[in-house]
């Protein structure tokens, strides 16, 4: 034996192996990552891959058959509910495990465990918002109800059965690349997933921003810049609806003017700007009087962030008592938006303000006691342990008052509050509720009464639930458990030293605005105000107006409607905001002395038909000119404003100048002369030319290229994302597709004796970037086409659409 060479070459070998098996070169061990039998190559799904398989699980009580169709949509046929939800969990995990875990980790404030320090601020914010606290209280309700408990238990067993079957080589791609492993699923994780949707849909408030605006502007200017009721309002429940006298008599605090509405010293200091978040959605239903078939048609397209893998996963669930098809959430049992043999339903976000802040007076920095109703009260503490990848653990202490967690304090301002004051958050999503029950009961609903009973469980996030059934009923309900507020309550930070500013009661279910078989033969919602000002409870402000207007205008005009008409309506790019604003711009642009290039751009705007079509150049000109105009109008007023503030809505500016051409804010207060509307619009137009010419040079003048819609992978890794999609639409169009936000699931259900349904979402059924089913729906979605949705019947096992079969036995 030659010791020295043996030693040297052994050391080299071991060194190589150790290096390649460690995370020195990459976040993941390179040797393991590239080993064809273990690493990423194992995730390269063959184009001939078969998904047929036989599984045996002792947890099952009977047989379950799954038929996967040519789009990889599973049709699950089970004998019992518990087996059904087991297999639903198993399939969600099989095709979407990584996103389920990532999203629930993020919801729980545990993202730092996966991505490291970069997520610490997010994690602290979510812990301080009380996300886990909220999920835990929700879980208690879910587990109190035998039906939802059974579904959650079986679902969790199914997910865990899949996780237990994983080997190094079958681990989803992202785990390999990021070098970690999945942990066990639990019912709490499903609760966290649903709470994450609450955060997404009912976790938006502008209380700090509005407080700053109130402090900065005079009372008169403030009410002009932030009106609480808009003129061209076409609410969800039409104007003129008669509302009963409210059953709750709200006591407005006696010092409301001096200590709240007109109080100026609640300044909050801050550095960063808050990201703009606008979740929108459309839904509507028409009854048989308006359709060609004589049966109702229901449509829904919820607008959410566009991600890969998609938030949605299509499924059919079938047992002897249940047959439902639609979009499911990987992370929770049941179908969320869909239809069964009797009815269909869909949702848009209610968008009312259900998150308010109270300023707390602590006795001292220890935060052990706070002043409330003329006495010192004891605080409760929740200790948050945040594990951080490659870093020391972070410990956070969160004080809880009668209102809720003290989210912002000396150690955390969230970029919007103040490090010298204390703000407790009162969030509706902290209250006990069992939203899963709403969906489980909707899955089995037969009639209008079942629908009402089901959605009465939906408390937060409040949703506008549209409904239609085969008997011919249509309905819309602005469902949610909404706090009854006096006018202005919760628009700003409220005093937290006594109970007078607290929410006093919830609006009773019977007093929620709704419509059932209305004489106009249709119902619709697009996130606009739920009702007009005759509704006796305060509804807050800031609802988007324009999609609702165009939807109602079109539905009013349409007759003999077919599903095809609904497809063109749902993908309609008409911009009703531009229809109102463009003439105003054109009438005020002074054409004298315009350069040749300016005239060219003006011609594009003049020739524009208000359609945000993908190839439209007029749409781009309008967008750029309006943005510059809005900046020019308000930049001077906001020049010295605190950084955490919110600008007036586009609708406020448009309504302002439509009703008053001498609109107060038109004049530039930093110059001595008085600018007219025409001056400002002409300057805004000229200011736009440089940007427009640049876009033209780069070949981005066409609207779809200028807007540049993309569907990002959840890590934002570009190779796993789909970029530069050719799609029109925009904020104010029914096709509300923005750069990374838009219709996340389009569904049309015609409730004819044999249901005719269509749907599409921007993603694919398989979450694996190495699968041809990863993003195969995206081009369909972008081009505005739909897939027929197949409600498979027992006996259709031999249908040519069935490509693969999975069988589950115990």
């Amino acid at each position, binding site marked *: 034996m030659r010791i020295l060479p043996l030693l040297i070459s052994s050391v080299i*070998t071991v060194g190589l192996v150790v290096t390649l098996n460690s995370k020195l070169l990459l976040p993941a061990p390179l*040797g*393991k990552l590239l080993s064809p039998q273990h690493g990423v190559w194992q995730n*390269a799904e063959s184009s001939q891959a078969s998904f047929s398989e036989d599984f045996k699980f002792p947890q099952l009580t009977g047989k379950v058959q799954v038929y996967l169709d040519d789009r990889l949509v599973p049709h699950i046929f089970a004998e019992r509910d518990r087996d059904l939800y087991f297999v639903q969990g198993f399939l969600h995990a099989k095709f979407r495990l990584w996103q389920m875990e990532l999203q629930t980790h993020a919801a729980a404030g545990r993202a730092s465990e996966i991505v490291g320090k970069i997520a610490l601020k997010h994690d602290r914010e979510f812990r301080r918002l009380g996300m886990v606290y909220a999920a835990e209280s929700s879980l208690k309700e879910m587990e109190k109800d035998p039906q939802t408990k059974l579904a959650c238990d079986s679902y969790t067993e199914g997910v865990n059965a899949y996780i237990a079957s994983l080997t190094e080589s079958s681990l989803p791609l992202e785990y390999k690349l990021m070098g970690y492993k999945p942990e066990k699923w639990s019912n709490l994780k499903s609760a966290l997933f649903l709470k994450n949707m609450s955060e997404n849909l009912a976790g938006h408030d502008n209380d700090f921003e509005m407080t700053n605006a109130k402090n900065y502007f005079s009372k008169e200017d403030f009410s002009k810049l932030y009106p609480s009721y808009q003129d061209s309002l076409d609410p969800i429940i039409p104007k003129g609806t008669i509302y009963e006298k409210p059953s709750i008599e709200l006591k407005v605090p006696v010092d409301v003017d001096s200590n709240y509405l007109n109080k100026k010293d609640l300044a909050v200091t801050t550095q960063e700007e808050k990201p703009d978040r606008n979740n929108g959605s459309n839904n509507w239903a028409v009854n048989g009087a308006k359709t060609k078939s004589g049966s109702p048609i229901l449509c829904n397209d919820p607008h959410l962030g566009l991600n890969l893998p998609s938030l949605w996963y299509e499924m059919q669930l079938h047992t002897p008592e249940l047959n439902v098809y639609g979009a499911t959430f990987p992370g929770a049992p049941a179908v969320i938006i869909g239809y069964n043999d009797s009815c269909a339903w869909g949702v848009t976000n209610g968008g009312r303000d259900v998150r308010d802040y109270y300023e707390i007076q602590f006795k001292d920095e220890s935060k052990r006691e706070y002043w409330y109703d003329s006495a010192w009260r004891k605080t409760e503490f929740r200790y948050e342990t945040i594990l951080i990848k490659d870093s020391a653990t972070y410990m956070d202490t969160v004080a809880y008052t009668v209102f809720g967690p003290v989210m912002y304090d000396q150690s955390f301002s969230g970029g919007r509050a103040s490090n010298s004051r204390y703000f407790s958050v009162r969030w509706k999503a902290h209250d006990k509720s069992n939203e899963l029950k709403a969906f489980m009961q909707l899955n089995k609903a037969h009639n209008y009464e079942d629908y009402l009973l089901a959605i009465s469980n939906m408390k937060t996030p409040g949703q506008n639930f549209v409904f239609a059934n085969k008997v011919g009923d249509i309905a819309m309900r602005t469902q949610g458990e909404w706090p009854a507020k006096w006018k202005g309550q919760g628009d700003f930070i409220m005093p937290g030293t006594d109970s007078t500013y607290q929410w006093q009661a919830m609006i009773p279910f019977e007093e929620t605005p709704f419509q059932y078989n209305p004489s106009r033969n249709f119902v619709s919602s697009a996130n606009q105000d739920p009702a007009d000002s005759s509704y006796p409870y305060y509804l807050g402000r800031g609802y988007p107006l324009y999609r609702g207007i165009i939807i109602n205008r079109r539905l009013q005009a349409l007759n003999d409607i077919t599903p095809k008409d609904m497809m063109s309506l749902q993908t309609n790019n008409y911009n009703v905001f531009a229809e109102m604003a463009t003439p105003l711009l054109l009438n005020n642009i002074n054409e004298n002395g315009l350069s040749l290039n300016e005239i060219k751009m003006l011609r594009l705007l003049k020739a524009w038909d208000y359609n945000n079509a993908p190839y439209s150049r007029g749409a781009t000109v309008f967008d750029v000119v309006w943005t510059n105009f809005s900046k020019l109008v308000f930049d001077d007023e906001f020049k010295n404003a605190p950084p955490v503030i919110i600008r007036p809505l586009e609708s406020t500016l448009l309504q302002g100048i439509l009703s008053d051409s001498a609109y107060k804010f038109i004049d530039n207060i930093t110059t001595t002369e008085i600018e007219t509307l025409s001056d400002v619009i002409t300057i805004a137009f000229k200011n736009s030319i440089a940007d427009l010419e640049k876009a033209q040079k780069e070949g981005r003048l066409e609207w779809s290229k200028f807007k540049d819609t993309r569907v990002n992978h959840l890590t934002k890794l570009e190779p796993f994302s789909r970029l530069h999609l050719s799609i029109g639409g925009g904020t104010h169009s029914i096709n509300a597709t923005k750069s990374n936000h838009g219709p996340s699931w389009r569904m049309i259900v015609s409730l004819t004796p044999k249901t005719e349904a269509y749907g599409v979402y921007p993603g694919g059924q398989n979450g694996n970037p190495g699968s041809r089913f990863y993003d195969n729906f995206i081009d369909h979605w972008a081009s505005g086409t739909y897939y027929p949705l197949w409600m498979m019947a027992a006996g259709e096992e031999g249908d040519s659409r069935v490509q693969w079969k999975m069988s589950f036995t115990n």
Partner: protein
Amino acid sequence: MKFIVSVLLIALLSLAVGLYLPWWTIALVAFIVTSLIPQNPMRSFLSGFTALFLLWGALAWIISSNNNHLLAGKVALVLKMGNPILLIIVTALIGGLVAGFAALAGSFVRRK
């Protein structure tokens, strides 16, 4: 002859252990084979290198072709390698180097 037998043995055994054991067992396989089939150090190294370069290269190539290079294209971009063929070559090289050095070490076990 010894060379070809070594290459074949290392490749086949690596394929087999790879089904059940961690990726780095290819090093053990190469080490054991060259310590049992004595060749000079250079030839030993080459037999280990060739075996795994060919095995991993071929496996990656077959898998990737069946996948129309869909995933390899994406992962190559993530790892900043540009194209799927390069990713296959890097895969083959890593396998080849680890097995090559292990085989070299193995060749010294019985040498005087």
